[in-house]
């Protein structure tokens, strides 16, 4: 057996080194081919600004993939197509009509402004492709580290640790008892310190004042614990449920600076801020099927890297019924069951539009630094006291509101203030929120 294992290992080593050599040779050849940096740069710039909204080098997007397109089409044909494809089709060119039909008649924009030189540069870029500065040679062995990253959840470890400690204490005391039963008497001479402590303990046990003090302390402590528990009933501050898709607000609202209301678009008109339907996700994710190379989402118990995050995007595709290979909707949709975090009880009325549109309150005021949250949690307690505090402190912007100008003036006079707070405007009346 041993020799077979050794043999296997040797063979795999041989294979690996051959692969490595081949890769190395390949990188050398690809570097050896002369790349005209200036042309490549110009072509890349033009491609990114003019073509990339519909074409990719390596796969189909709105239009066909363009990597190595020069080998598939004549240069002159490409030029006339790019400059004005409608005219080319009108002239009866069979290839042009065929490609138009293949993409269901989606019209490519005409680019009459591009010169022949521009087009040649773009084509040069599509032929050469991206130049990779660092040749990434990854051996197979390195890819397996990720698999062991899972591990047991932390509470299991905690319970196990607690059980071990308890077991240790029990064993220790048992051993002690056994020892005593065997007749091994305790050593006669105890250290001074130990004897002093024992005398102190006896003294404490006999002291009535200390007893009273202890009872009072215990009562206070238990009252604190009981009230603390009662006050946390129904208060979900910090609640952070596991969502069906690892959606990072940090990436979307933080790094990509997408406005909160882009997705939560009903906040401006409605009681609810709304959870975006999947079509809103697809507005961007139609073309973004993969996260950027170095994207990492760090959750408390695990870290997700590109491979896992791409699977999360695939979940969006499954929900929307989007076939990422054929780039079309299949019609087989499945709603995403997000777990609701912020939930006011049914006996209180709250309206997002009143706060977002009328008062112009920033989302972050109640929801906290969402743009920094990898995983969403409830930032505020959402208790009545918390609402009232804010109503008492917030000045109402009275400018440019002619309809209510008179009543605002009267209120300001009544309270003897220049600026009226939300509370003075009626923000403390029970019936405003409870009815």
């Amino acid at each position: 057996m041993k020799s077979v294992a050794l043999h296997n290992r040797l063979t795999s080593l041989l294979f690996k080194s051959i692969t490595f050599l081949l890769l190395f040779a390949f990188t050398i050849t690809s570097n050896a081919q002369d790349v005209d940096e200036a042309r490549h740069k110009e072509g890349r710039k033009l491609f990114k600004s003019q073509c990339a909204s519909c074409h990719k080098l390596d796969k189909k997007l709105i239009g066909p993939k363009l990597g190595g397109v020069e080998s598939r089409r004549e240069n002159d044909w490409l030029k006339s197509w790019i400059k004005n494809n409608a005219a080319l089709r009108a002239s009866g060119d069979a290839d042009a009509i065929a490609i138009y039909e293949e993409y269901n008649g989606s019209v490519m924009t005409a680019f009459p402004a591009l010169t022949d030189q521009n087009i040649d540069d773009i084509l040069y870029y599509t032929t050469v492709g991206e130049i990779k500065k660092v040749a990434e040679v990854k051996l197979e062995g390195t890819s397996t580290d990720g698999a062991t990253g899972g591990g047991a959840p932390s509470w299991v470890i905690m319970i196990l640790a607690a059980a071990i400690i308890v077991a240790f204490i029990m064993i220790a005391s048992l051993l002690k008892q056994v020892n005593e039963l065997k007749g091994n008497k305790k050593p006669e001479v105890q250290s001074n310190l130990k004897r002093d402590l024992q005398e102190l303990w006896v003294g404490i046990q006999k002291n009535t004042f200390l007893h009273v003090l202890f009872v009072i302390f215990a009562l206070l402590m238990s009252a604190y614990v009981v009230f603390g528990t009662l006050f946390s009933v129904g208060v979900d501050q910090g609640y952070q449920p596991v969502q069906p898709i690892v959606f990072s607000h940090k990436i979307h609202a933080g790094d990509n600076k997408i406005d909160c209301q882009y997705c939560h678009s009903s906040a401006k008109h409605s009681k609810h801020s709304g959870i975006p339907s999947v079509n809103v996700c697809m507005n961007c994710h139609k073309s973004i099927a993969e996260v950027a190379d170095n994207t990492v989402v760090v959750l408390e118990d695990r870290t997700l890297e590109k491979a896992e995050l791409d699977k999360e995007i695939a979940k969006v595709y499954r929900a929307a019924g989007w076939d990422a290979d054929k780039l079309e909707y299949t019609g087989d949709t499945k709603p995403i069951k997000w777990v609701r975090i912020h939930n006011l009880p049914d006996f209180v009325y709250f309206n997002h539009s009143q706060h977002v549109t009328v008062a112009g309150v920033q989302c972050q005021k109640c929801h906290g630094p969402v743009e920094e949250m990898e995983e969403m949690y409830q930032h505020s307690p959402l208790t009545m006291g918390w609402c009232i505090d804010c109503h008492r402190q917030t000045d109402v912007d009275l400018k440019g509101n002619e309809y209510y100008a008179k009543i605002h003036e009267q209120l300001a006079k009544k309270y003897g203030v220049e600026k009226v707070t939300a509370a003075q405007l009626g923000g403390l009346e029970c019936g405003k929120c409870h009815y």
Partner: protein
Amino acid sequence: MKNFKLIIALVIVASLASCGDKRSPQIQYMPDMYESTPYDTDAENGLNGNPVNRKPVAGTIPIGGHPAYDIADTNEGYEKAKADLKNPLERNEANLANGKAMYTIYCTSCHGKKGDGNGHLSKTEKFLGIPNYKDRDLTEGSIYHVLMHGKNLMGSHSSQLTYKERWQIVQYVEVLRADLLK
């Protein structure tokens, strides 16, 4: 017996610690006052086991609403909207101001503040090839049509905006385009 007390203490500490679990919600006092009897927005348990959010019945118009946009998402539809569709709103300060506010939320990420295609997502190369408004032949009808149906990589934004807001954005985009063409 000493050990027994210790175990009890440990159990109490453990149970208190588990109360602080942030993955599950706190207990509710009288849950029937928290959970709504009527259907909640976005809830999954609506009529006949369907989610609560449904598309409106075809052919219906909400009170104060507008007839559904009926120009098809085709090349012909685009040409038709471009030629015929007109903005029903009058051009005034209020409309332009709200158009700007809505444009800032829904369009700047890609199209940029000025409409030159240099939005944040364009600069960071998440989206490429966003056209400059001045390079495209746009009319108010074509802008509205693209807002409704999307075009190429741009998706439809009709679900996020109301009828009025869409036309306000159209107004603002026209102003941006005029500025770019100067």
